[in-house]
């Protein structure tokens, strides 16, 4: 017995037509049947989920209800659940077990959510296709050759494939909204500061957010009710009141001012996606929304700005993985053997340089020999080199480069200034409109392997999602049907709003989704 949304399951629960245990069991069956193919879950906590479901059932019998009782949730494996693995899709953390619960996990457990397992993701959240996970790619639920998007590809695929009611993702540059669009589910990136990051493994701290993904706007609103709010353990979490987000639903869009940023409809947008968005706009206009064109003039600089600042923050955040306190450590004996070999090679070169009387080369080789004989340093290097995958290394390298002497002003500080301009674009636009409506992605899901050889092309696929992270504003991705050329591929619209106006996003998102023919 399964229900398409949590809200439906909730109604069935309150009519005694089902139980939390029955809900969990039906999702566990689905996971068992499908996960080998889709690879959405990295770990499944079968016993923990069933035990918690039974506990909730006994509580419900006593009339002790909770707002999310019976919600079967997947949790992206970047978010800590006490005593469970926390891999971030990386070899580096293959054997890591979390010592504590993230703030969002505490909140959701209290609200009655049941954590059924940890979902696959791009390594440390770095990727747009879920192809960088050390534990293998996630498959698009509708077509085995396509990517589900990333980095929260496991969460999106799990929800779309009916392996859980909803899931938590994380969004640093579009990692909730883009996979939600590719898989045909709803995904919310909250305002920076709306949801505590305590217990979220850091990628780029000034961009990272945790967001809910579900099959309806209502489910996402119910989750946000539990997720939002301040937390003393995250100094960037905001003391802003949390409304009941479900009150934003089911209301008319009459009089709502909707802006269409012209830069998001420029070259590079798939023409069918453009037509699908325009059809949505027409319906909203018919329903009384006031639609106008707006400009966010610095949009084209979003990707460049993001890939300086996010990689710089990543290079700093990921310096903690050194093979000493936790995480992957290179094998010492293998390392010593390698060092010995390299040592001998350097000595040979030194001999040659000395007999040639090349003083400069001699000094250089002496330096290398000194550094190279430092075993602890070699342990750092080898552990990191083995523990991180190619994309993570590429971003650490880019970020280190941007922060290194001689490049800081040119890249890092410049990008910080452009970030101010991009934020200003948004704040300016929200003087005139309530929400912005854009495509979530320039194309539908692409094929596996299509963009892995060209990192820049992969980065450019985030062009519509990255600006919201730069500006810190909230964004919602809503499915609006499937692509006419590829009926298995969903298409998503994105709504953006002023800081802390998640209610405005959910209001219009709900109306938008109801306009889409089932």
């Amino acid at each position: 017995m399964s229900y398409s949304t949590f809200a439906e399951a909730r109604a069935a629960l309150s009519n005694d037509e089902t139980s939390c245990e029955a809900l969990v069991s039906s999702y566990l069956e689905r996971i068992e049947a499908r996960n080998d193919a889709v690879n959405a879950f990295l770990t499944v906590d079968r016993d923990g989920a069933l035990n918690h479901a039974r506990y909730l059932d006994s509580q419900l019998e006593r009339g002790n209800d909770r707002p999310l009782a019976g919600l079967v949730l997947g949790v992206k494996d970047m978010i800590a659940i006490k005593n469970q693995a926390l891999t971030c899709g990386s070899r580096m953390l293959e054997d890591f077990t979390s010592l504590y619960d993230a703030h969002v996990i505490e909140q959701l457990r209290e609200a009655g959510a049941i954590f059924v397992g940890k979902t696959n993701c791009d390594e440390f959240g770095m990727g747009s296709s879920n192809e960088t996970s050390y534990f293998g790619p996630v498959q698009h639920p509708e077509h085995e050759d396509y990517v589900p998007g990333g980095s929260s590809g496991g969460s999106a695929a799990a929800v779309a494939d009916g392996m859980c009611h909803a899931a938590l993702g994380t969004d640093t540059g579009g990692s909730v909204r883009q996979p939600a669009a590719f898989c045909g589910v709803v995904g919310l990136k909250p305002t920076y500061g709306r949801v505590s990051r305590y217990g979220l493994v850091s990628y780029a701290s000034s961009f990272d957010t945790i967001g809910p993904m579900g099959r309806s706007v209502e489910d996402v609103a119910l989750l946000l009710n539990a997720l939002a709010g301040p937390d003393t353990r995250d100094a960037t979490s905001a003391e802003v009141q949390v409304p009941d987000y479900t009150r934003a639903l089911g209301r008319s869009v009459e009089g709502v001012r909707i802006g269409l940023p012209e830069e998001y409809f420029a070259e590079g947008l798939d023409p069918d996606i453009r037509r699908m968005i325009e059809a949505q706009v027409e319906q909203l206009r018919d329903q009384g929304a006031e639609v106008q064109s707006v400009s966010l003039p610095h949009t084209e600089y979003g990707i460049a700005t993001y890939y300086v600042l996010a990689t710089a923050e990543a290079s700093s955040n990921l310096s903690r993985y050194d093979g000493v306190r936790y995480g992957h450590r290179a094998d010492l004996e293998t390392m010593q053997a390698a060092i010995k070999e390299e040592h001998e090679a350097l000595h040979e070169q030194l001999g040659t340089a000395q007999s040639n009387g090349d003083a400069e080369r001699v000094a250089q080789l002496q330096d290398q020999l000194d550094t190279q004989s430092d075993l602890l340093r070699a342990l750092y290097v080898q552990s990191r080199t083995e523990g991180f995958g190619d994309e993570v290394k590429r971003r650490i390298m880019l970020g280190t480069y941007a922060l290194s002497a001689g490049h800081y002003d040119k890249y890092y500080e410049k990008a910080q200034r452009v970030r101010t301009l991009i934020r200003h674009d948004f704040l300016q636009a929200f003087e005139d409109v309530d929400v912005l409506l854009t495509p979530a992605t320039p194309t539908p899901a692409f094929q596996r392997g299509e963009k892995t050889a060209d990192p820049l092309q992969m980065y450019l696929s985030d062009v519509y999602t990255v600006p919201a992270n730069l500006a810190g504003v909230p964004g919602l991705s809503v499915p609006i049907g499937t692509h006419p050329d590829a009926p298995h591929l969903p298409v998503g619209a994105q709504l953006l709003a002023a800081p802390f106006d998640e209610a405005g996003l959910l209001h219009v998102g709900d109306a938008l989704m109801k306009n889409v023919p089932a």
Partner: protein
Amino acid sequence: MPVTPDDVDHVAELARLSFDDEEKERLARDMSRILDHIDTLNELDTAGVPPMSHGVTRENVTRSDEPNARISREQALQNAPDTDGEHLRVPRVIDTDA
């Protein structure tokens, strides 16, 4: 090409990573292409525009300094690759022969 394999060596040194020659070539090429794109930022005049470091601006966030739940030594060592039961163990860094 703004980034050479020698630059890659230098940055890898700073980042505590190592690459073979083929990887260095590829990284130099990828980083150069990405940096070429990033160079488009120079089209913008940002004189007088303040740098933005965070999604929200909050200053002087404080909390009371009270003891709260801590982890035990055992827990702290739980994820360590090598310990002697009480401490983290790493390769010898002090030369005792000297």
